[in-house]
């Protein structure tokens, strides 16, 4: 089967003679020509295959299809090629080879299925939350089972390791916002109000949401992928076999760690963003650093800080819960792992923004100067 001679059809006096190697790699170069030449044969043509130097499944298939799935009446076929055609005959009849059509469902059925999936998610999420409350009750009664090591590890991974990237993003956002505000405020001669705009905007709103989106993308996806991989490799089952409660060891530490880390990260991000803003305010508007710092408490009353910190707490727990919820739903294949990781991040970010709207409504009378 050397990659060799080109496949050819030779028309001899009473029929055709095939020569060369009729294999996939050799046929590809002269396929259109051969297809055209085979159409010049008729049903009573004599076929001579004895001079072929090679024939593979594709070569055989090409001839077989041309012959209409049966041997021509007059054929010279060397015995070694017979098996090839016999294998072709073994394939199922045409109508069994058809790809099953996707069933188009009625709209109503679609809505029902989507609703059931949604209810399933809500049910599983409530079950997860309930399980966590039970576990919390358990460790409060027997504190020696508190998974300190896991909590500390998660705190480090999701909190400390997130500090550089969040600092960078926060600083740049602070710089950009301050620059835009400075341009607008200068038109009204209201330069001093940069303190109010930046302070309320960043501390109350932007800081918590910004870091929540970052953490959802960074730590939420990592948590889902970790739990998902552990499902794929049966590690979670191994834990359960050893009598280790998975919610206590895998879910609770993540929720607690993010609940602790997020308020701290909110403080860190808002601080850096304000610092970026102050820097630009100084160079664009000529506002002194001491003036800015002294006026910040006046512009942003203390309740705003409490709102920001509680937002951090709630967002953190939400992200961890969503991540664990989707991580535990992963089925043991790669497709499911990637799909659930995507869903985890999208759901976490959507929920964070929804919750932020709820916060805005609930706290609309708290901590706003001149409101």
């Amino acid at each position, binding site marked *: 089967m050397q990659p060799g001679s080109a496949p050819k059809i030779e028309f001899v006096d009473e029929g055709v003679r095939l020569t060369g190697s009729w*294999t*996939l790699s050799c046929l590809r170069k002269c396929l259109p020509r051969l297809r055209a030449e085979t159409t010049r044969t008729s049903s009573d043509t004599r076929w001579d295959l004895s001079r072929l130097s090679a024939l593979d499944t594709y070569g055989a*298939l090409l001839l077989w299809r041309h012959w209409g799935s049966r041997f021509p009446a007059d054929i010279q076929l060397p015995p070694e090629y017979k098996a090839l055609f016999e*294998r072709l005959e073994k394939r199922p009849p045409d109508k069994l080879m058809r790809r099953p059509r996707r069933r188009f469902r009625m709209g109503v059925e679609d809505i029902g299925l989507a609703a059931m999936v949604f209810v399933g998610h809500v049910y599983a999420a409530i079950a997860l939350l309930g399980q966590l409350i039970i576990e919390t009750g358990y460790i409060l009664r027997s504190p020696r089972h508190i998974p300190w090591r896991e909590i500390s590890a998660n705190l480090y991974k999701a909190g400390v390791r997130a500090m550089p990237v969040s600092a960078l993003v926060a600083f740049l956002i602070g710089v950009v916002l301050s620059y835009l505000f400075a341009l607008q405020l200068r038109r009204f001669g209201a330069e001093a109000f940069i303190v109010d705009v930046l302070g309320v905007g960043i501390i109350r709103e932007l800081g918590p949401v910004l870091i929540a989106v970052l953490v959802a993308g960074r730590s939420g996806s990592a948590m889902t992928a970790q739990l998902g991989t552990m499902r794929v490799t049966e590690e979670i089952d191994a834990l359960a076999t050893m009598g280790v409660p998975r919610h206590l060891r895998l879910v609770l530490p993540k929720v607690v760690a993010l609940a602790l880390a997020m308020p701290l990260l909110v403080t860190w991000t808002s601080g850096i963003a304000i610092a970026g803003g102050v820097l630009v305010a100084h160079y664009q508007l000529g506002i002194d650093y001491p003036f800015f710092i002294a006026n910040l408490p006046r512009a942003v009353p203390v309740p705003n800080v409490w709102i920001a910190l509680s937002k951090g707490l709630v967002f953190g727990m939400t992200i961890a819960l969503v991540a664990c919820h989707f991580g535990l739903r992963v089925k043991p294949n790669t497709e499911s792992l990637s799909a659930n990781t995507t869903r985890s991040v999208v759901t976490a970010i959507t929920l964070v923004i929804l919750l932020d709207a709820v916060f805005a409504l609930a706290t609309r009378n708290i901590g706003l100067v001149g409101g």
Partner: protein
Amino acid sequence: MSALIEIRGLGIRFGPRWILRRVDLEVARGELLALVGGSGCGKTTLLRQIVGLLLPTEGGIQLFGEPQHAGDRDTRQDRQRRLGMLFQQGALFSALNVFDNVAFPLRELGFLPEAEIRDLVFTKLAMVEISHDAAWRMPAELSGGMIKRVALARALALDPELLLLDEPTAGLDPDRAGAFVELIRALHSALNLTVVFVTHDLDTLSALASRVAVVAERRILAVGPLDQIVHVQHPFIERFFLSERSLHALRRGKQSD
């Protein structure tokens, strides 16, 4: 006829550690060569080397009489298409169903009409005894034995001359393993294949191999028919083949011939 695979002075190093050194091996057309050895001795590494997944640290491999990595992009691609590999876990694309998995290498060629691809895929599936209604299932819905057979069909999709098998019977029950060995043997004679396979399983070894290469101590200790290998004086070979368990398996293999 020249050797299909010719390995000369091959050495592979991962970091400071030599996995294989000064390996020489020739595989003739039509052979069924088994690579055996203890766990982690470099059998699979050698196999991956032959497929071209790893670059050798020293020495080289001639495939089909040409240096393995010679030529331009198209030449290398054509050479790669002349061999098929069955991975240990099957390595089916989990996003594609059985049909699309086997059709994948055919579609990659880019000149076959869909009707011919369909006929070829179902011919290959029939060869490995996968029924037509399993063609639309996803890999996650298949049993271990079926995954191996579908993966074999995919490896054979382009009618390769050389077939490489990594642990073809690992993870199959004895019955399925026996059937799989029979299938490979039947395809070997029917398709004029050259087969190189890695195995731990002495049943598979004695039922399938026409020649055996023992890999140990970073080199190939001995090559030859199983009957001769068994009598080579070397502590590793004696431990491997002449233990009670092994003798038992080899006897069974003899009977099945």
